[in-house]
């Protein structure tokens, strides 16, 4: 069972409740401000889990969907010679197509790659969230690298995506340097220390 922090609303900003390094670093600074300002008003139980933050997960979801939609729109308009209203319709539909493509990716991983791995290694892994997360991010990074070399409006989108990956890497380095302080904070709030 997960750890729960009772009646400490400021624990909402514990870095252990965030997944990505950029957000964890932001949470660290936000937590320091919240710890001095928050009053205890009501009974609150906060779960300590790396994927607990709604702001983080919604932001990443919106960013990945928008970026993938841009790549898809760039692909459609450059490869298929559609013109006029059909072109506009195709571009308008790209967020829906991108959502379908995203789902096809993890369905393929979960339904093909993992059963293959399980058959080969003789294991019975059921929880594939980590594997699928790595695959999704790897696809986004590879697509960004591809479109970063392309001409036109999609190029800055790809460079922004690469910059986000780089920023997250830099934040991970900072967090690694701060790991003792983060572990102490986790101990203070009774949650297990979590790695980078």
């Amino acid at each position: 069972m997960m750890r729960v922090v009772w009646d400490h609303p400021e624990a909402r900003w514990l870095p252990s409740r965030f997944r990505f390094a950029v957000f964890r670093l932001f949470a660290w600074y936000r937590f320091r401000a919240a710890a001095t300002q928050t009053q205890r008003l009501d009974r609150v139980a906060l779960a300590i889990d790396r994927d607990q933050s709604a702001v983080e997960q919604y932001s990443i979801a919106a960013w990945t969907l928008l970026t993938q939609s841009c790549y898809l729109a760039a692909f459609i308009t450059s490869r298929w010679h559609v013109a006029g209203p059909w072109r506009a319709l195709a571009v308008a539909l790209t967020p829906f197509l991108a959502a379908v493509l995203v789902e096809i990716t993890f369905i393929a991983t979960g339904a093909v790659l993992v059963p293959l791995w399980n058959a080969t290694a003789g294991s019975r892994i059921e929880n594939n969230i980590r594997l699928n997360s790595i695959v999704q991010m790897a696809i986004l990074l590879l697509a960004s690298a591809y479109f970063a070399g392309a001409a036109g409006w999609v190029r800055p989108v790809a460079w922004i995506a690469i910059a986000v990956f780089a920023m997250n890497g830099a934040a991970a380095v900072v967090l690694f340097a701060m790991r003792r302080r983060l572990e102490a904070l986790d101990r203070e709030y009774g949650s297990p220390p979590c790695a980078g």
Partner: protein
Amino acid sequence: MIRNAWWKRFLVRGVFWRQFLRWAVLNVPLFIEPIVEASWTLFFLLWGPGRRGVMRNLTAIKPGSSALVNFLRTYRVFWNFAWTITDTVRFKELHVIPDWEFTGWEHFKEMESRPEGAIILTAHMGSYDLGVHLFAEMSERRIMMIRAPERDERTREYEAAMHERTLGQGLRINFNTKAAELAFELLEAVNAGKIVAIQGDRVTEGIGSFPAKLFGKPTLIPSGPFALAMAARVRIYPLFVVRLGRRRYRLITCPPIEVVRRSRNRDEDLAIAVAAWTERLEQVIRETWYQWFTFEPFAEDLA
């Protein structure tokens, strides 16, 4: 026993969607989840009877609103439903719990401190499953949760197996298939100091009912919890689990309802308690209509 035709597993109440949800909980990256929830919510809006049921209920909850606005509101109801069933499966499979806020804590403490049993009366709102599991974790008492059985046979078997596999120490789930047998069992449980959790906003087949009014419309409310409270002389604690956002819920415990025998007319005494319940139910539904998961019209004149 005749098994369902194979294709029935793909109907909206079929077992396929339960299995698919479990698979998704174990496979979907968390940062992709909002996209997946949004797209599948859109897909399930194709479920005509459910969509129309919610829209018709909304005409009573929000009188004067247009069909288009109620259609968009229905998307919000389906969206919240998708998140709550996902949170419940995630809790059962991975023991991931959401954040909780509590309102009416003093009523919960009061229920805990009284030696006799109690009845928790809840509604099809937020994740009532998750709420009762949390209650079972916090409470020192044993909790018996009563649920309506699934209509589809394979889904019923799947859910029963899942409950068997994932239930906590202090919680037991009973399906109200045989009302008469269950009534004695519940009376015994409450008399032994246990807490019985029942949903009190929808009458299913074979369940005793009591006429009441909700949003000015005549409807039927399950009579069992009130009759049980009267027979066992225990209090009813209305409890609502409200979804506040992603992995964030509020557990609202209301002041208790006492079902007291005041006259020789039992129905009159029950009517007072039922009216107190529907008043609280109406108040909570009015504030959080976007998570009242009643997919059939609640009143005959809305059908």
